[in-house]
């Protein structure tokens, strides 16, 4: 008897690839690189390109754990404020002369505690994460302000400074390297492990996930704690690079990080998306900033452009859909 074997994927059609989100993003990246290299002779310079990764590496690290948060149908607006707290802890522990490993530990711990606080409030009281993190966004940043007032730290362990601004083998910035390694780890977790499938399941239908035996609250708590941890890691790199910490450090970064994730094709209401898409979108935004910067477009222009890109990346496809349905 011929058994009807069901294939894993639909028959391979080149055309289908064209519709995939990741491919479109890749095309956009390609176009940007092309345009940039035509417009400015400095663009394709290897050293310039390497140095350009500094601007986005810290944000990129947080974007990875933020991806998990958003796929799980949550959002975390407090990441930049957690960075501020972690940076303060970093500066303070340095100023009282602790050993480097203790400094790092306390800094990471502060991020973990902030993230856990978020996770606790969200799961214990079942409050939408957008509201809780709007609150903790102010609370954490406020703690940084009240601690530092109008002072700032500018002394950090050599290790930290080196992490933030040096290169492995003289070529690869540590921050960028960390980002690349982490993206591989996150991609593996999301696509090849049960943890990843459960995160998707929670994002699709939290109640159904609960009935399936997934401990939704536990996962939510862990995801926010993780976000806190990675915010602290990013803070270490950033503080090292800037060699200065003021309470307004990383101001506005949460928006850019969320932009990285959403532009990467992760559905804002959860349930779908890939790490690959987010990584490509990080490069898109990075190359864009870099290219525009070379053309002396002010930082503000880049901000406007990013905002427009974010809205259009979602608006344009739905506009096309609308157009198509009208013609049918």
């Amino acid at each position: 008897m011929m058994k009807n074997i069901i294939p894993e994927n639909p028959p391979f059609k080149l055309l289908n690839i064209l519709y995939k989100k990741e491919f479109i993003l890749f095309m956009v990246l390609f176009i940007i690189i092309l345009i940039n290299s035509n417009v400015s002779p400095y663009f394709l310079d290897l050293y310039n390109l390497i140095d350009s990764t500094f601007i986005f590496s810290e944000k990129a690290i947080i974007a990875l754990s933020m991806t998990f948060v958003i796929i799980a149908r949550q959002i975390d607006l407090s990441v930049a404020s957690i960075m501020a707290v972690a940076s303060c802890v970093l500066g303070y522990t340095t100023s009282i002369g602790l050993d480097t490993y203790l400094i790092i530990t306390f800094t990471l711990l502060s991020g973990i505690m902030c993230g856990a606080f978020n996770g606790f409030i969200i799961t214990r009281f079942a409050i939408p994460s957008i509201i809780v993190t709007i609150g903790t966004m102010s609370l954490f940043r406020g703690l940084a302000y009240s601690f530092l007032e109008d002072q700032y730290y500018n002394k950090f362990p050599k290790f930290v400074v080196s992490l933030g601004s040096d290169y492995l083998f003289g070529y690869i910035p540590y921050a960028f390297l960390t980002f690349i390694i982490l993206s591989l780890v996150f991609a593996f977790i999301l696509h090849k492990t049960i943890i990843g499938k459960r995160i998707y399941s929670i994002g699709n239908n939290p109640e159904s996930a609960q009935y399936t035996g997934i401990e939704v609250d536990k996962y939510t708590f862990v995801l926010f704690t993780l976000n806190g941890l990675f915010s602290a890691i990013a803070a270490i790199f950033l503080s090292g690079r800037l060699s200065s910490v003021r309470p307004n450090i990383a101001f506005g970064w949460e928006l850019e990080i969320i932009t990285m994730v959403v532009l990467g094709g992760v559905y804002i209401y959860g349930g779908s998306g890939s790490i690959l898409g987010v990584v490509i979108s990080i490069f898109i935004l990075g190359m864009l900033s870099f290219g525009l910067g070379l053309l002396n477009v002010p930082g503000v222009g880049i901000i406007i452009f990013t905002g427009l890109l974010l809205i259009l990346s979602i608006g344009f496809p739905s506009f096309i859909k609308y157009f198509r349905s009208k013609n049918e």
Partner: protein
Amino acid sequence: MIKLLKNRDFILFAIIIFGVILIGFANPFFVKPSSLSDVLTDTSILIILALSQMVVILIRAIDLSVASNLALSGMLISLLSTVYPELPVIFFILLSCLIGTFLGILNGVSIAILKVPFIVTTLGTLSIYRGLIYFVSDGKQVYSHEFSESFLALIHYKFLSLSFLFWVAIAVFIIMYLLLNHTKFGRNLYALGGNPEAAKYIGINENKYIILAYSISGFFAGLCGYLWVARYSVASTQIAIGFELTVISACVVGGISVMGGVGTVVGCTLGALLIGLIRNALPAVDISQFWQLAISGAIILIAIIINTKTEQRKDKTIMVE
């Protein structure tokens, strides 16, 4: 009587009165009528923005772009006023409202027609509008001496020892109260927020209401653009940065539910008053300004938690013991 005591708005009111008394003990100067009047003036813009934000939150959305909208509208009319100082101030006020409304409509269209989720849209316009301020002003400020007399005069006008600003807030309160409680549009907003699917069956056009809600939010953001700029006699790229969070906190404290369909105009106003009270109380009791952000954040968290605990329906009693 018991029902009154359990009424959320009444509790808020009681907290405010209690708070004023408490602060008065620490700093008697604070409870002088003129000081209190200053607090009201200072809170006026927050009240206006909270009431207009309420319209959006009622239909299960948020407008994160209000502060940028306010700043952009304010900057545009300020720049215009330096070029045409002879124009009457009412012209600038109306223009500011118009610009704000237009910016609000853009939000509404993006959400309703382009189907870009409100979080994404308003996060985007938050940046775009803020960025445009730099663009139009070249990063420069408009200083107080550059404004015409007529531009600034209105703000300092006092009637019955209450400032012009506060009277505007009262007027907005009355308008919103009538709009949300006594017009078909207002009641339909509550319905749409409470049960969007059902509202469709009743014939309420969701897209129309989304665009209108964001237009209202934008209109008042524009109005406050003028008020802010005139009050502080300066227009810059930095004004009202982060203020949208304060506005949302006021709404949440005031009992407006993020799930939509729940909240009162009175409650929203009281929420704004409470936040305003705290902002002004801190310097009065010698707490450094730098604590303000942390305290606001803590207040909003406490408020939401209390909100949620009372909102969440306890299991319906099935069995009587």
